[in-house]
């Protein structure tokens, strides 16, 4: 009987663990709480991600120096005040790395008075890592600390950028597949597209990458050189890594996950939770004792 009790307890524990694992994750694109292939939990769970400082509002950038700000897949535009604050941050000698493929980051680029723009497109290439034409390969274009020693970067349905200095570009056998049929048609021209652009602004540097998919879990094993590239972003010239969590899709979470995050981040709520659980357990134990006696 006792063995049955332990086995039942073990299975209950497993079920509870799976249940909590299930409710503490989601399937949102780029979400750091999404443990599936299209989430960014692995990047945020890496040492660099864990050590990074989260920027919950752009005004938190004020006064920071020697920092590298990562903005991954912004999902809403930046207003003028936010753009000004990022501009001030940049000109103080910091680095801003914007990874955007939808063009949502163009409001920031306009606000920064940058030459670079992101052009949403279904970029497709003959030079690719996988059978799917969207797994485009990009190659170093002009010397930059981010591309030194890297021969190719594997992308996943990238858009392209224009303006600035090209740091990574595709091969000439690349085209914007406007009709999405995966093959080149008469109206679609082959050409070299820029994937990562650089622009110096004041003392700072602005990078714009047209494919935030390099951060998703599914791409972590896409190529050794992708890991090298991500490692360089995380430890760029020994700068402090900041990760924007206000506009970025990586901060997306559903209500339950948000509640858990809030609970974890609030000491008051943690204390209340402990008191509630403790009281419940005590009441149950007392009831059992009185029943037996």
């Amino acid at each position, binding site marked *: *009987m006792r063995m049955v009790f332990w086995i039942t307890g073990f299975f209950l524990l497993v079920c509870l663990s799976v249940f909590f694992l299930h409710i503490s994750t989601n399937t949102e694109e780029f979400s750091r709480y999404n443990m599936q*292939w299209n989430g960014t939990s692995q990047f945020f769970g890496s040492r660099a991600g864990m050590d990074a400082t989260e920027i919950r509002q752009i005004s938190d950038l004020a006064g920071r120096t020697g920092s590298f700000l990562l903005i991954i897949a912004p999902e809403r535009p930046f207003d003028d005040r936010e753009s000004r604050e990022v501009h001030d941050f940049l000109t103080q000698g910091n680095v801003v790395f914007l990874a955007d493929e939808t063009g949502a980051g163009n409001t920031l680029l306009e606000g920064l008075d940058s030459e670079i723009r992101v052009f949403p497109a279904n970029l497709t290439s*003959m030079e*690719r890592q996988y059978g799917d034409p969207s797994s485009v390969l990009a190659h170093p274009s002009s010397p930059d600390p981010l591309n030194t020693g890297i021969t190719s970067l594997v992308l996943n349905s990238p858009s392209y950028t224009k303006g600035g200095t090209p740091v990574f570009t595709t091969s000439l*056998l690349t085209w914007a597949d406007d009709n999405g049929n995966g*093959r080149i048609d008469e109206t679609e*021209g082959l050409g070299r597209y820029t994937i990562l652009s650089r622009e110096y602004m004041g003392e700072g540097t602005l990078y714009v990458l047209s494919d935030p998919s390099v951060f998703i879990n*599914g*791409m972590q094993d896409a190529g050794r050189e992708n890991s090298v590239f991500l490692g360089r972003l995380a430890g760029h010239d020994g700068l402090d890594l900041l990760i924007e969590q206000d506009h970025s899709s990586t901060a997306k979470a559903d209500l339950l996950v948000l509640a858990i995050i809030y609970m974890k981040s609030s000491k008051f709520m943690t204390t209340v939770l402990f008191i509630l659980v403790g009281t419940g357990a005590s009441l149950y134990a007392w009831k059992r004792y009185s029943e037996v006696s």
Partner: protein
Amino acid sequence: MRRYILWTLALALSAAIIFLVLLQSASPLLYSAEYDAFTKRHANPAVLKPAGQDSAERLLPLMSDLLDTPGTVIINLEYGDVDIARQDLEEFRQLSQSLDSLVINLDMSESEVGDFRRMNQKNLLILSELVESTARLEELNTLEIRFRDARDPASLTSITYEGESLRNQVSQLYTQYQSQEEPLVSVSEKFEIDSTGYEESQDRFEQIVRKIGDEQERRVFTLQTQIQPEISPFQLTMSLAPEQGAFHETIQMRGNLIGGEVADREIEILVDTRKAASVFTDENGHWEYLFRIDAIDPGSHTSFAVFSGSTFSDIVSFDVILAETSLTLDEPRVYEGALSCSGGLFSDRGPVDGVRVDLMVDGRRSTSQLTDEQGAFKVNIRPGPGEHKVWALFSNPDVPLSESQSRVYSVTIPPPRLQEPGFFDSWENVLALVLGALVLAGTIIGAYAYLRRSRSHVPAFLRRPRPAGGDFPVIVADPGMPIQERGPDVPEPPGDDVFIAYSKAADSNIREAVHILFSYVRAEIAGKLSLKNPRSCTPREICRKSSNLPLFTDLSAFVRQYESVRYGVKIPDEKERQSFIDLARAIHGSLLGGRGE
């Protein structure tokens, strides 16, 4: 014993589940990574197959090589190394085939690479003809020396005429080669390919044309000045009309043989030094031939007539016009999974008959069909279910007709209506049914055996018959209620059989033994209180319901001991075993108003 049965059942069930899972493992239906591998923003690399990158990486170097090779062929021709030029041409042909297959494999027919491939094919054709023409001119040079030494004016005239045709032909090849330069250089610049070699080859080609022209001039000069014309009794004239024509039009060639016996004499007609036909003169020495323009390049062509291999007419020229074509395709009709396509090919001079029109499906040639006299064609194809792009294409470099393409239609071929397979058509269904039936039967048999066994443990005297009148009323014990000593619901005073059964079972399984006693006590009390479904009452419920009865104290003690043995791990000693009997007797006695003690 019961424990072994439970273990066996659990094992059997586990084995059955594992077996069922294994059955599904080959084609899991619950979840597969492929199901959600693509979103609007990216694809899951875990489900993508690695690409063969070699082909794409080979493409640009191959294009570069193909742009350089014509220059090599032309240099060798310029220096008179025809054999080496042939080898280079063969290499050029192989490289071109590699490009062809690469473009098809990469599905790039409609890109600038596809344009490059088409221009390269044209270059290959031009160079092939140039090599053959140059080789023939080399032969003519040798023959010229021999005929001149042999003072053979007829043969010398023949090779001079042939030389004229070849000069004409090479000149046209140069014009075509020149027209390729701008688009080819433009494409190569786009792909960052160095086209210097190709551009230089244009100049070298021009040198070859000039050299052939000079040789022909010299040949004509030799014929006219150094060789005495053979005195022949015959003269041959030739004229043609019209002087230009388009595809499938005819040019009338005619002339007269004069001098001597001219009736029924054979006249050979040569077009571009190749024999086109033989005709016979009439009684007046008149001959006539209708030349039909078919597989011949557009541009200027030469023609002359020869009688008896020694009497030549003058050389006359005519032009072949490149006719613009238009291709129509009616909206394809879908029926029973097939596609019926029809259309027509027309030039600016009317319907075009007798040429092949290709039907393209999703960029690949599906089939081709000859046009009829009205220029119409009709084909039926089965492209397979799904959406397709269909169009017609006419492209034939051998005839003087321009390339044309119809409009593109999107058609959807519905999937064939599947005949629903019967349930018993699949062995997996049958196996699942048999297994399901076995499991169900096993469960039923097991449940029945378990119940039988459970009931056999209860002594017969504990099985109370259900009253005939229906359900028992729910009654709460009342302390003032008199004890019913006799009646149909009151058990007989226990003999020794309960306690004998208890003692027997206690030796092997004390938990079962105390349960026998408890069942007895519960039946007693249930009978007393007329409880409904007494077997569903737990010891504590029985205890609670008897809280107003005098037996409550004994019953509480009995239940406490019973729970510690039945549900706990306690193994009672002899004294404690006896105390169960004592308490049961006391409870029975209380129920009978002290008679049992």
